[in-house]
């Protein structure tokens, strides 16, 4: 049950940790979940959209993420930040969707397909350099691509990324370093 100290606090004023604790209160559960969706929907959507490129796929993954949050928040122990926990679920949902769509496709073929989506997919604008960057990113191995997205676009700290991916900070720094250099080489080669 939620601690007494936060029972009378309005839900929008609760911190992330207090929100998670308050979810245990059946009378406030729906409101808490609504607040969680409201707080995190945009970040979750943008995160899965960068992985999946396609809006409809990202929409599916985002919805599935929050369904999983609803199903499992009662078991969330607070070992990590609520945001990290939700982000991890979103990442897994997006990757599962990616693998489901392209189960037996090698990285090179998948990269080409996704690069084509960057060029021709709906709800994608941006100038040439933005598209070049995205096309370079999709050529990266999955782990490097994820780390790059979270560090460069989401501006998460290595500690946060470590909580989400379960990877050491040293390994994350190496991943990001390699990702940046590969992307720079690809963009320079294509200019």
């Amino acid at each position, binding site marked *: 049950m939620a601690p007494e100290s936060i029972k009378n606090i309005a839900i929008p004023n609760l911190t992330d940790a207090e929100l998670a604790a308050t979810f245990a209160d059946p009378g406030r559960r729906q409101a808490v979940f609504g607040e969680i969706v409201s707080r995190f929907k945009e970040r979750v959507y943008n995160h899965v959209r960068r992985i999946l490129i396609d*809006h409809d796929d990202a929409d599916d993954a985002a919805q599935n993420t929050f369904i999983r949050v*609803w199903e499992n928040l*009662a078991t969330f122990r607070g070992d990590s930040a609520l945001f990290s926990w939700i982000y991890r679920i979103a990442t897994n949902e997006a990757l599962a969707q990616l693998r489901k769509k392209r189960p037996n496709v090698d990285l090179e073929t998948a990269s080409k397909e996704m690069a084509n989506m960057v060029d021709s997919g709906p709800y994608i604008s941006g100038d040439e350099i933005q598209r070049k960057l995205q096309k370079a990113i999709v050529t990266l191995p999955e782990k490097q691509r994820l780390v790059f997205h979270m560090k460069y676009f989401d501006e998460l700290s290595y500690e946060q990324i470590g909580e989400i991916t379960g990877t050491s900070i040293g390994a994350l720094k190496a991943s990001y370093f390699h990702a940046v250099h590969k992307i720079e080489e690809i963009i320079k080669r294509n200019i």
Partner: protein
Amino acid sequence: MEDNHDKIPSPFETPAGYMDGFEAKLAARMAAPVNRKGELKVVHKRRFRTEYVAVAAAVVAILVTAWFVFLPKNSKIEIAKTPKPVKLETPLAPTPAIQDTVQLQKTETAVLESVLDEADKKTIATAVNSKRAQTPQEITIAQELEEDGLIVMDVEDGLFDEIEILP
């Protein structure tokens, strides 16, 4: 690309009105009739997949037909005569068809047993028996088994009460 460069924004656009309608869409999806994955129920019995039953039935039918077709000459059945009651002095040995069915059942059970290793079985049994809040590890194991189509969880408030081991 490093911090001293201007960040290159993402080219991905959000469709107009998408974020405003997100909660309503999510609520509709959560209220919709659940598919098998979210379904709640279960039983502890083991059932055999209908495909295995169909295959076993087909094997039995083929073997029985073949046995009649290729009957030895001295065993010909004389339709005109009224058959006399036959008293069995020794029990019938299992026919190949019955042996095949039994073998199929054993194979199926063995496959299932091999998938659920001891740690999984103990973890799930403990959670089921105690009905306490399950640990993330138990939830993860159960979810993985559910995703693999091996079990269905009865989930309420994030806890699973019963688990069916599917064929």
